[in-house]
């Protein structure tokens, strides 16, 4: 609206003013100047956001790209601390960090597990969230009480949940193994066996992530007009048919967004892995983002190496987002 109004005034100024402007700056950046002149008001309004975004997102990103092309570590980046002066001795190394990371079997193994972890978690998040949302969308006694109860995991800070789960899973002094022992069953090495630890972290993340999906889907369900169901019932549609041909398509605008968000969040779910297993046993539950942290924060910090991993994560997620949007557009989603 604002832009249009500004547009109007400039247009109202008539061609004479445009002519004058051209005369004053012969051969100058005509179109650019006119563009800014026409939209200056919009630019001024968005400037604070643009500047903040550039400082908070743009600068670190550019710096990250730069560092990933060097061999910078904590030891060779120049600085002066009190009486100690450390000269800058890091060098530009081109794409060496990227080729090294991609050739590293550790990167590929971690990537494989990260993809599996994301796929399993998001599928379970959406599946369980959908099921619970449908249950809670029906008239039910104490419905709001159940809703509050189910949203609770989301309200607890993730790190608190992670620590609680760690105690639940603890091998010798954990609640879960105590219950198994009481029932006469052998204890399970929840966090100490490579395969079981993977299942354990998925359980924690699913528990954490379902409430968000449930809320989002519940909102989507309530937006589906009731008349559609009534009309379908009149026509003799079975409950399954109503679900398949009304509920699922009706949820698509919500589902496509929350699944994409969920995928990005889960792909970068640092807290659960770091706090529950610490990436162990060995490195078996390490995902890309926790491994990037491990590179950056053990001993003498490897700035270049962790920046490389960070950018590779960004590239993977960007590629995934583009493919996902294409796929949605092809199936007729207006997004």
């Amino acid at each position, binding site marked *: 609206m604002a832009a249009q109004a500004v547009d109007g005034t400039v247009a109202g100024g008539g061609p004479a003013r445009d002519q004058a402007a051209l005369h004053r700056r012969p051969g100058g950046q005509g179109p650019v100047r006119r563009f800014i002149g026409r939209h200056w008001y919009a630019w001024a309004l968005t400037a604070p956001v643009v500047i903040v975004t550039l400082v908070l997102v743009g600068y670190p990103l550019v710096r990250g790209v730069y560092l990933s092309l060097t061999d910078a570590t*904590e*030891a060779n980046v120049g*600085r002066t*601390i*009190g*009486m*100690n*002066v*450390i000269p800058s001795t890091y060098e530009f190394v081109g794409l060496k960090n990227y080729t090294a990371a991609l050739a590293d079997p550790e990167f590929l193994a971690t990537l494989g597990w990260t993809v599996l972890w994301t796929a399993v978690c998001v599928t379970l998040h959406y599946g369980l969230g959908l099921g619970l949302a449908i249950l809670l969308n029906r008239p039910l006694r104490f419905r709001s009480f159940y809703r509050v109860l189910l949203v609770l995991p989301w309200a607890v800070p993730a*790190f*608190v949940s992670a*620590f609680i789960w*760690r105690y639940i*899973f*603890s*091998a*010798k*002094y954990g609640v879960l193994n105590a219950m198994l022992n009481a029932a006469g069953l052998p204890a399970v*090495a929840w*966090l*100490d*066996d*490579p395969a079981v630890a993977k299942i354990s972290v998925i359980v924690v993340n699913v528990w954490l992530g379902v409430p968000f999906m449930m809320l989002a889907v519940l909102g989507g369900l309530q937006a589906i007009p009731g008349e559609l169901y009534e009309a379908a019932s009149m026509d003799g549609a079975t409950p399954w048919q109503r679900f398949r041909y009304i509920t699922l398509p009706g949820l698509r605008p919500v589902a496509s967004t929350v699944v994409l968000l969920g995928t990005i969040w889960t792909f970068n779910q640092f807290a659960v892995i770091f*706090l529950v*297993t*610490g990436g*162990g*046993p*060995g*490195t*078996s539950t390490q995902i890309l983002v926790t491994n990037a942290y*491990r590179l950056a*924060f*053990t*001993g*003498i*910090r490897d700035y270049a190496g962790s920046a490389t991993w960070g950018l590779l994560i960004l590239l993977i997620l960007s590629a995934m987002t583009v493919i996902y949007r294409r796929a949605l557009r092809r199936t007729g989603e207006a997004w």
Partner: protein
Amino acid sequence: MRRVISAVAAAAALALAVSACGSDDSPKSAAPATSAAPADVTGTVTWWDTSDATNEGPAFKELIADFEAKYPKIKVSYVNVPFGEAQNKFQTAAQAGSGAPDVIRAEVGWVAQFASLGYLAPLDGTPAVDNADDFLPGPASAGKYDGKTYAVPQVTDTLGLLYNKELLAKAGHNEPPKTFDELKQTALDVKSKTGVDGLTLNVDSYFLLPFIYGEGGDLLDIDSKKITVSSAQAVAGVQKVMDLISSSAAPKPTIKDSYVAAETAFKEGKTAMIFNGPWSMSDNLGGKVFKDKPDNLGVAPVPAGSVKAAGPTGGHTYAVYAGSGNLDASYLFVQYMDSAESQAKLAGKLGLLPTRASAYSLPDASGSPVVATWKSVMETAVSRPWIPEQGQLFQPLVEGYQDLVSGKESDVQKVMDGVAQKYQGLLKGWSL
């Protein structure tokens, strides 16, 4: 060397919150002239203590109160930072140039790294290095880097074998095991005769070192710049550990929160033997089976392998941040905290082993049974490589150790070769 990472992890959140609020409150004014007389030095010294806040912290706070009484113009701001996070937090703050303390209690393995990165002030010729000849050579060597002194030793320690005397006696052993083979036999006897576990292992690189040293191995050979972690001797040491587990002399150890699991089992009388250091004494003596019978807790040097009995040298130091705005006050603080009298007081109260020869003859220290017990254990301590990369050596090793214990890998040589390869990535110019 404290290995209480797991124990303090639960407090991480709290500490993060504290760190967020506890930003740098020491004024960064220009340093006063170095020639100032001690009594005229003013300022606020922020000290990051990494000791156990509940058991050890109060004793340090008492020393600080005495220091403030002696130097009324200097204020000390005491901040307890959990050991497991202190290294990372200090690096972040020191490099950013804000939020770093003036003085830090640095673990012996951190000093060379901090010094090489330019974070520490050289202490030679300052009041902080007081009566240097009095320091025991082993612990003092950890404070030196590139010919200069960057830290003075506060306390020294090593690992020993802690045992429950009653349980061993029930199994027919009145003496603690002296070799790895005896260790295995004793543990098996305890299991069969008393029903409780004989030995509980802690899956941690530091606690693996006595086995590697015992067979004549080491992580690195400093003199020839050689990576020896995959040598036959080191592999033999790790194999000893795996044999203890596969023969059921030690139950399959917990990997997550391993330290706490072993420590708890020992305190509760559920296991007869563990490896641990003098820092754990007050914790152990508060446990169910030792609370009323402190004599039941036995301490012996780590058992010997086919070559020797040896534990790693650990301990902590006082180091001064190079960017501190209160260098003179910091030097005086370090001098006071590390005097023979202060060390003896800590030895008497906490059982911490002094790093000054003269401190051992002061009544506070000489009267401490814990110090007397551990002094003989210290004779088995061997020096670790004090290089900047020291702090990075343990991570690959513990990951390999975990892979072996969890059953993901079974070939010790293969795992250790993998560790050696990672070391090659860390140590430029070292050979395998």
